[in-house]
């Protein structure tokens, strides 16, 4: 007997369509050659009163790579994201993007320059549809104002048509095209996570920052996510990944930066990080006599 409705559980894994063309569109920022420095965090220190959240952290991200940013809870990973996306201003040091310091640019300006992010706790526009959520991301590079909209000027029509096409392509890529008109809040958890990534990709970022995208995923979904992140990179994006799950990080990243208590304690390939005693100590603790 067929069940009329199946409860949506977290076990279902939405299949992605890797063939969809989601390559970033030209957003008018200088091009960086593959393997060159895209973003550089230079001696960044961030203090909240007496608390030092980041302490002279330096690392860089090369164009076209997947960089993992890991560390125990409270190590400053998300804070690092927040400095890079303009939520916080570093107390000292600088974030250089495409060779120029981000300075005091506003959050939306940094997004327009090509840095997009997702959130550790999903922060979709809950009462908007999946399609509208992605359209907001596409709109980042649009300029339709009240006058264009009011008279339905060619600019409005062109941007709406382009935006819709790109948003649907992104939803198709994520396997969410069938749910384009569902409210974001009604999507299953995994779909919400994917929708967040789609929304960030919609801004055509040079650098995509994913903040714990696998949080709450089961092993099967994590495998799919690894595949997804690789596909995104292959379509021409650079990815910075914050993640707790070691297996996922080791499996998908090219390089890893390890933070602990706001300091960088290691940097290197996944294999190097796996054998690095400081990293092992940070994650597993050390015996008293081994401590140096």
């Amino acid at each position, binding site marked *: 007997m067929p069940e009329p*409705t199946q409860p949506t559980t977290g076990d279902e894994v939405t299949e992605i369509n890797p063939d969809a063309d989601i390559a970033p569109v030209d957003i008018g920022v200088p091009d960086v050659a593959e393997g060159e420095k895209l973003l550089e965090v230079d001696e960044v220190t961030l203090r909240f009163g007496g608390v030092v959240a980041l302490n002279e952290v330096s690392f860089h991200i090369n164009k076209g790579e997947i960089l993992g940013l890991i560390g125990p809870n409270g190590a400053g990973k998300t804070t690092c994201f927040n400095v890079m996306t303009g939520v916080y201003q570093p107390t000292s040091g600088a974030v250089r993007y495409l060779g120029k310091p981000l300075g005091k640019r506003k959050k939306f300006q940094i997004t327009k320059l090509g840095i997009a992010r997702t959130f550790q706790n999903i922060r979709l526009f809950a009462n908007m549809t999946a399609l*509208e959520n992605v359209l907001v991301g596409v709109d980042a590079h649009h300029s339709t104002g009240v006058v264009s*909209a009011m008279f339905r000027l060619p600019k409005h029509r062109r941007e709406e048509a382009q935006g819709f096409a790109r948003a649907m392509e992104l939803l198709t890529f994520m396997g969410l095209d069938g749910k384009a008109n569902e409210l974001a809040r009604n999507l299953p958890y995994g779909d919400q996570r994917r929708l967040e990534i789609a929304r960030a990709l919609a801004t055509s970022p040079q650098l995509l920052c994913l903040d714990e995208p696998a949080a709450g995923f089961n092993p099967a979904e994590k495998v799919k996510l690894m595949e997804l992140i690789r596909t995104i990179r292959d379509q021409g994006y650079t990815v910075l990944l914050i993640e707790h799950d070691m297996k996922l990080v080791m499996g998908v990243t090219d390089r890893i930066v390890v933070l602990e208590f706001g300091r960088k304690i290691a940097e290197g390939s996944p294999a190097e990080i796996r054998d690095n005693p400081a990293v092992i100590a940070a994650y597993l603790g050390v015996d008293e006599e081994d401590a140096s």
Partner: protein
Amino acid sequence: MSTTTSAPAGRKPSSRSFKERVDTMPRAVKIVLWVVFAVFLFLLPLLNIPFITTEGSDFGGVLFTVATYVLVALGLNIVVGYAGLLDLGYVGFYAVGAYTVGVLTSEHAHLSWVLVVPIAIVVAMVSGVILGAPTLRVRGDYLAIVTLGFGEIVRLTLVNSQWLGGAQGISDIPKPPGVELFKVPSLDWSAGVPVVDLSTTSTFLKFGINDFVPYYWLALGIIGLVLLFDILVKSSRVGRAWEATREDEDAAELMGVPTFRFKLLAFALGAAIGGLSGALFATKAGFISPDSFQLLLSILFLAAVVVGGAGNRWGVIVGAIVVGYFPERFRDFADFRVLVFGLALMLLAIFRPQGLLPPRRTVRAKRADDRQAVLEEGEASA
């Protein structure tokens, strides 16, 4: 057995919403229905339909008042419903619009009405920007308090400024220029059946002092234009940016929405529509004083939006009609009006907290939440 949209003809499935039903009609039918509805609205004050028509006060005048409420609610809906900014001082913009007309047509100059109304809109818009630029940096409750202060500042300025007429206000505001094209007869129901009454007519379009029906027509026409503007702007990048800002300001900013700019825009547009409504009010009343712009009016405007369903333009129109019309219709209960109104609001808060016609997103979300709850219960008992 499931009732789907392909249900047998003759019985409409009740699960389909009104909007869905309208959407599936052929285009021609839709246009005809809209035209019929518009004609009905224009003739409403002359049809003198029993029970609906207010007996104590002139029905044309009442309908005009309701129309100004509708206009205000549409403007405030942009601010409160779309952009999610709680504005408790909206009457300030209404006053700015009314006083601009008063000052420029009567008190200090005698410009033409046609010229003054656009000026009033611009002045109200500028006052919206002036209020918004410093205050939109605060959020939520704080913004509500600051705007509340703005409404009072405007009123107190009017009371204390002799240049603006002081407590006596401004009188002799001229009527808009009209044309006398044709007379529209009214219906007389005194015999129990409607009879065309050729002796009681309204002239299209003559703005007199006894017949308020032409003012209502003017306001209705303006509402149509504002509605069109609302629909066009809402379904664009601008509308999405407002909604994103309302949903999660920080996330919107990080997705490339210049939230401050869009909040200011919502404020300015809302203020402009409020100012336009105030200008109409001043034109019809012919006399304005600070007493016309009490804080209570701000609360009523906000009530119209909330009662109707913030974020749904049709909802707020219904809300404005409820808030503007019912107190006039039930003038007999004059002493208890506010009491009944308060009770009605309380009942509404209990039974329809999202408003009479909540935005469809809320309806859809509610439906989905219910479905999920049923599923979860099913799982628990299984």
